[in-house]
């Protein structure tokens, strides 16, 4: 209940900031030494929020469906791609982390490449992956691959950290119970890693959304909200509010994904919050 209030307060704050800047900001933007340090505040660059909301209700094209239905449908399409990418990425990240924890050699050999993988520009990678579309996988799946490529990284790094977090005495205890690698993983390392896993999953969720939106644009996949942003931005001069409807949808998608990921946490982290110490 309280959380919902905070979210609403955050939204209100953003709305006030937007409209407030429009009120006081220079319509031509503030230029300092030839550099525009503050954006233009005119209706073309920053349409009023109510214009954006009102635009949501009007048809996309004359006689077409209302914009909000188009945006929601595009978001659902992208949500599907994001979900697939997130699941694949998280699984790959988990497996990599377990392999790196198990074999020192794998950690030494692989970790630099895991980090390197994130410095490769997505735009360079996209055409390669896009080529797989329609041959070994449907075109939408190539976007999921890009989302997974971004999502696996925080999981691999965070989970490795978590799997290595148990104290030496915990590991010795398991050894004293004659527990092998697998049972130590299940009974000790995995539960110890959960507090590291969930923040990593939240990052992965955000990365998957970014990956899906950017992936749609750079592979030219139709139907998603990323594509919608590009299409609508072409009309920005004549219909500036339209592109903001799509951006609103993308932002909403990010929030929904973040919310869904944190739901995962509820059943597993239930026992870790209470702190009523009994002193006897």
């Amino acid at each position, binding site marked *: 209940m309280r959380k919902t209030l905070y979210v609403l307060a955050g939204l209100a704050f953003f709305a006030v900031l937007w409209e407030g800047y429009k009120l006081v900001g220079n319509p031509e933007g503030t230029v300092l030494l030839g550099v525009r340090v503050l954006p233009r505040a005119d209706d073309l660059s920053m349409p009023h929020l109510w214009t954006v909301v009102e635009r949501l209700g009007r048809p996309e094209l004359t006689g077409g469906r209302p914009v909000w239905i188009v945006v929601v449908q595009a978001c659902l399409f992208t949500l599907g791609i994001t979900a697939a990418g997130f699941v694949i990425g998280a699984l790959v990240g988990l497996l990599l982390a377990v392999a790196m924890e198990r074999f020192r050699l794998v950690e030494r050999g692989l970790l630099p490449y895991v980090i390197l993988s994130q410095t490769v520009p997505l735009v360079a990678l996209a055409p390669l992956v896009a080529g797989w579309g329609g041959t070994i996988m449907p075109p939408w799946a190539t976007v999921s691959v890009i989302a997974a490529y971004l999502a696996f990284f925080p999981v691999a790094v965070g989970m490795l950290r978590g799997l290595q977090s148990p104290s030496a005495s915990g590991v010795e205890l398991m050894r004293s119970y004659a527990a092998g690698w697998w*049972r130590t993983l299940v009974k000790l390392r995995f539960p110890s890693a959960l507090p590291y896993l969930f923040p990593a999953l939240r990052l992965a969720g955000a990365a998957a959304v970014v990956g899906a939106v950017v992936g749609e644009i750079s592979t030219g996949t139709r139907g998603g909200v990323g594509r919608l942003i590009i299409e609508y931005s072409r009309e920005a001069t004549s219909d500036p509010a339209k592109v903001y409807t799509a951006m609103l949808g993308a932002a909403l998608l990010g929030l929904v994904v973040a919310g869904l990921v944190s739901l995962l946490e509820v059943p597993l982290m239930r026992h870790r919050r209470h702190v009523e110490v009994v002193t006897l």
Partner: protein
Amino acid sequence: MNAVDINGVTKTFNQGRADEVVALSEVDLTVGDGEFVSLIGPSGCGKSTLLRLIADLITPTTGTVTVAGKPAGAARQEQAYGIAFQQSGLFEWRTVLKNVELPLELRGLSRAERKARAEQMLALVGLEDFAGHYPAQLSGGMQQRVAIARALAVQPPLLLMDEPFGALDEMTRERLQSELLGICATTGTSTVFVTHSISEAVFLSNRVVVMSARPGRITASVTVDLPSRDEAGRLSPVFFEKITEVRQALRGTPAARPTEGAAAGSDAR
């Protein structure tokens, strides 16, 4: 059959490197069945190393370690001992009961058996009312008692304890000492107990093994036979005599010159 037989054990860490350390040198030690043996000595004398060798958490460089007639490795595979460390090392995501059940789970006992046994062990350490609590909710002394219950859960013939009461206050410490003695008496468990408190070692043990550092070796073995192991025992003349004897053994000086060589035993209190 002896609970523990250690023959000519030497342990060298980082052998052949610049940071080579001889932790133990030519150690022989026997712990009889049902005997309570304390290892005492200054920091770095290898007493914890010796305990870890018995537990097969590390392997000796030379020599042999036999636990209940079997090589230490085989004994570990059979969970022939229970172990407790200075830090309770409880799993924070498990309730007290589930923590005590852990070694039983790994032994493959059925759910009902595990629960019954764990509850019995918690009753033994007086924590049956806290079975559903999480470790973070308990005080340090209570956590340590859970750790002892966990070490006892498989009803091992041998109990290994590495300064289990080291982090506790004096009052809790004395209470847990009495509880431990009671448990060992009822279960007939042999115990190897590492400590750096002279009075603790004398009060608990049938035998106090005194070690010295660099390289770690056994320098004396003091047999203790208190009239009783309770408050009266703590006040008996024998108790104080034995404390003096252990203290002198730690300092490595004969009884006539108790003040000399204090530096060597300074961190043994």
